[in-house]
């Protein structure tokens, strides 16, 4: 029987969560190259195939933004301001390179500022399209060709297709393991809390894929056996929204009479709930996966050719998976959260609300500003919401 202090996987995840750079810095000593990546659209499989370790880049809610004020106004995404600030303060200076993608307008502009103000040995920006139109698909496919060539130039090696297929296999294995982890959130009470889930996901996004997979296997095995599982709460919530790269908001929610049992966020289920199909040319499967199968509002999904717009059908097409999640994870309420000035998620909120109304699931929208100062005000809103749905 596994006791609280013997939950090895979770304890390891917590340790990496608290010091994300320790392992990749060790790997650098072993001559491994470490590339930081922003958002979930850079093609990690290509990095792994070239034996480069992907390391996800985040902000730091505890670090006041100072240097980034010289480059970005206050009225843009506070996460990106924080991320740039850390870069300007040299917190990411150990990286061998950086990969970014067109996540949103500010997210596309920050890499240019970064390249201007922070000199990196290597940087690459993937101009990921925002629609699923045929031309966008083709364009995205061509972008991956260019990215591959750039990596070949950097490493001085031709891409070995076998290595790429193997990398896709490893990353798909990670996706399967994360889904297995999320299955442990289906019982009541869940076997793993929302806070622990963020810690585990952030950890695997800070390790080489094989090490992340090993950690996930340990976390899953230990969690299945744990005695100190989270307490049963009245409400089982799903979280939808912007990046949450720290546990503060979920910690606050779970300090109340609620468990976060499912999420659709990018330090959560979003990058892991579909596998990459292995196609004859593996880049085709990758191009299709990253554009079509990651459900982030940064990609506009619609029936592009419809003569008449069917709003209700559109809602189902765009958010039907949220309905599936709510049924599978027995969710009785949804918290929609968006960072202040995150237009990508903010503009999506009314239609997500409409979809939730359509399926009869109560929801509340919280806007937060990537500071700890708002937590107690948000707590009253969340508690009020829980009192309504209880």
């Amino acid at each position, binding site marked *: 029987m596994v006791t609280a202090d013997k939950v090895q996987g979770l304890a390891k995840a917590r340790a990496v969560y608290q010091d994300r750079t320790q392992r990749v810095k060790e790997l650098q000593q072993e001559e491994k190259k470490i590339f930081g990546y922003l958002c979930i659209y850079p093609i990690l499989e290509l990095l792994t195939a070239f034996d480069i370790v992907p390391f996800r880049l985040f902000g730091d809610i505890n670090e006041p933004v100072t240097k980034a004020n010289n480059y970005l106004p206050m009225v843009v995404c506070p996460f990106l301001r924080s991320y740039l600030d850390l870069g300007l303060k040299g917190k990411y200076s150990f990286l061998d390179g950086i990969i970014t993608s067109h996540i949103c307008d500010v997210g596309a502009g920050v890499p240019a500022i970064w390249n201007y103000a922070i000199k990196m040995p290597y940087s690459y920006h993937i101009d990921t399209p925002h629609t699923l139109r045929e031309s966008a698909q083709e364009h995205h496919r061509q972008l991956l060709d260019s990215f591959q060539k750039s990596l070949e130039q950097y490493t001085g090696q031709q891409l070995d297709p076998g290595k790429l297929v193997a990398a896709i296999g490893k990353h798909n294995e990670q996706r399967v393991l994360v889904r297995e982890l999320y299955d442990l959130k289906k019982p009541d009470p869940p076997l793993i809390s929302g806070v622990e889930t963020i810690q585990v996901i952030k950890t695997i996004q800070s390790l080489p894929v094989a090490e992340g997979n090993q950690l996930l296997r340990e976390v899953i095995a230990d969690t299945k056996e744990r005695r100190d599982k989270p307490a049963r709460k009245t409400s089982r919530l799903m979280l939808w929204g912007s990046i949450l790269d720290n546990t503060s908001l979920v910690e606050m929610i779970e300090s109340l009479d609620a468990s976060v049992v499912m999420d659709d966020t990018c330090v959560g289920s979003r990058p892991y709930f579909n596998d990459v199909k292995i196609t004859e040319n593996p880049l085709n499967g990758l191009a299709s996966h990253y554009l079509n199968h990651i459900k982030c509002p940064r990609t506009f999904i619609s029936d592009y050719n419809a003569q008449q717009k069917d709003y209700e059908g559109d809602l189902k097409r765009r958010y039907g998976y949220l309905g599936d999640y709510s049924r599978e994870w027995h969710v009785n309420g949804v918290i929609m959260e968006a960072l202040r000035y995150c237009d990508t998620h903010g503009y999506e909120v009314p239609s997500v609300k409409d979809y939730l109304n359509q399926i009869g699931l109560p929801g509340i929208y919280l*806007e937060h500003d990537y500071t700890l*100062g708002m937590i107690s*005000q948000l707590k*009253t*809103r969340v*508690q009020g919401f829980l*009192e*309504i749905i209880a």
Partner: protein
Amino acid sequence: MFAIFFAGVDLGSTMTKIVIIDETELTVAATVKHTGAEHRRLASQVMKEALHTAGLTINDIAYIVATGYGRINVPFADRQLTELTCHARGVSKYFPNVRLAIDIGGQDSKVLQIRNGKLLDFIMNDKCAAGTGRFLEILAGTLGLKVADLGPLSLSAKNKVTITSPCTVFIQQEVASYLSNGVPVSEIVAGLHDVIASKVSKMVKRLKLEPDVVFTGGVAKNIGVVRALEEHLGCKILVPEEPLLSGALGAALLGKEIVLNALAKGQTVPKSERRLEEAKLFT
């Protein structure tokens, strides 16, 4: 037969309110004091006053519900509920047909959609002073007036100035500018009330405007804001006789419901230790 009493403690950012009711829902004590900086210390003092008024001891209270911004700092409370739920219940006691309640307190404003005494939906203001009681306190200071004088003064205004800034700090500058141009103070005050009404009416419209509309909180004592809200919303606004007490009353009423529901199920409700002591930091 012994009477049973229930207490609601509304520890707001500006005022601490306590209401004690008996089992017939009759108010036997209602106390309001300034919260001040040391609100942890104050809750027990205000409770002592309320108990003294009612001629009761703390052990006579069957159940105590704490609400408001400082609800976690009431060590003698049996349960904490949000001011959202408590206001909805308290307002419904005053006005059973209420469907929308506006509460403007010291540090926040909220709009509640209510059905049959229960909270259905709500909106709270953002992290911004404009649209709260604090805004009026600051601007009253700028104008050298008492907050209580603002309402009657605004009713004597023939016109109202247009305030263009969304921020309290910049509104102070705008007010100084109007003063230096010789604009009557009453017209400036009327303009300030319009700022609050404009902000809150936008929140109302994000929910659904349905009468009866009730206005509570300290700012509801300001007749100028009441009139400005009626103008913006185009409907009659109802204000309870004591608009500060709806949260505490609701908390007491909900305490009674919690106890009765538990009794009906043959259950007991967990209670705190009935010690009137100060809440300690970081405990």
